[in-house]
């Protein structure tokens, strides 16, 4: 019970810090939007082409820049803060889980903010869009967990914000494929369940990795 209360405290603190610094939603989100704006400038403004590539590009941007959301500077604990949490009886799993929940919520907001940008710039076909209601949270959860794990692995290292994505981005491929293929399958009249199940599996593996890995990342005396 105390663990849950501690988790809520940590999540709330992370969200409060984001509300103050705006690093994820006021800095990284415009950065992602700029990326979406750049692609048509580079490949041409042919409307059918953009309509075709829009959803895929959206997910590439969500994955790449989404990891920056999870690795945001304000989500770094100093050694003094980690010591404080440890001495307050906060287990490393609880600390990282609280962070992952906050990151997943921020990622969901990040995804939702980029949707209108993609619609406006690329005008993608709206087939299968209701599935996004499931896909968006699944990707936000998986990426939030993987990003938190990356942040813990690269904690205190030089080049943390590049090392983190290099570590977990290749592992996030099923999320990219699931997110792009599920609505496409639905648009073609197939049930997208296998893709959703795949993403759910990735999310569960990430949960397990956090539960089993976090105690090994810190020496728990």
């Amino acid at each position, binding site marked *: 019970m*105390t663990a849950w*209360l*501690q988790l809520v*405290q940590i999540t709330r*603190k992370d969200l*409060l*810090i984001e509300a*103050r*610094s705006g690093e994820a939603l006021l800095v990284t989100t415009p950065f992602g939007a700029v990326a979406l704006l750049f692609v048509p400038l580079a490949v041409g403004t042919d409307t059918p082409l953009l309509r075709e590539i829009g959803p895929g590009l959206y997910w590439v941007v969500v994955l790449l820049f989404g990891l920056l959301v999870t690795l945001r500077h*304000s989500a770094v604990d*100093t*050694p*003094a*803060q980690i*010591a*404080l*949490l*440890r*001495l*307050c*009886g*906060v287990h490393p799993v609880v600390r990282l889980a609280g962070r992952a929940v906050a990151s997943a919520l921020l990622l969901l907001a990040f995804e939702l903010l980029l949707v209108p940008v993609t619609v406006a710039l690329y005008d993608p076909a709206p087939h299968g869009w209701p599935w996004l209601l499931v896909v968006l949270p699944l990707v936000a959860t998986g990426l939030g967990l993987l990003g938190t794990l990356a942040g813990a692995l690269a904690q205190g290292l030089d080049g943390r914000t590049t090392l983190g994505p290099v570590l977990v981005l290749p592992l996030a491929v099923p999320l990219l494929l699931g997110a792009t293929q599920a609505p496409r399958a639905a648009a073609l009249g197939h049930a997208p369940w296998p893709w959703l199940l795949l993403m759910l599996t990735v999310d569960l593996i990430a949960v397990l990795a956090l539960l089993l890995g976090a105690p090994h990342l810190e*020496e728990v*005396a």
Partner: protein
Amino acid sequence: MHPQLSPQAELTGVHVDVQRTAVLRGLDLVVAAGEVLGMVGANGSGKTTLLKVLATLVTPVAGTVRVRGPVVLLGHAPALCPQLTLRENLRFVAGLAGRDAAVADASLATVGLAAAADRRADRCSHGMRRRADLARVFVTEPSLLLLDEVQTGLDVASAGLVDHVLEVVRHRGGASVVVSHDRDQVARLTDRVVELVAGRVGPAVIV
């Protein structure tokens, strides 16, 4: 209970390596309940590492560590989230420790920061952050308090605050370990002073 019979912390034969350097080599140390222990030593002699061992943040490669908590460690750098106000910082600690928000507010008043409670930590001076860090002692009520050079940056009034904090912990039957380079200050604050030499506790120091 007689303090000698149940020490607050007991380290036996502790070996610690940090980044391949042997920092502590077979260190033995007993911190009795109710005592204020001073610790001195040259730069890089392992004082901070020893405090981390006492806080059970570092696991030795050999030796045994027995500590009765809860423990509060106040290090070189205050453990405050810079984007949060002092009040939010202390309330966060209170929440984790399962204590009331009012305790956090009262602790800020005790350290003389009631008027600055709603200022962000990164807009506070170093001395104010130090004091806010000291306020944690009133929130988590440790039975072992570890102070690592906390006097740097504190004004005269705050130095009195350190005395007060040590007295509060002692009054509850807890113990404190104070690390400092200022030998006069260590002598004034503590009951007993030890020096860390070659990874071990040297003979008691008269200062």
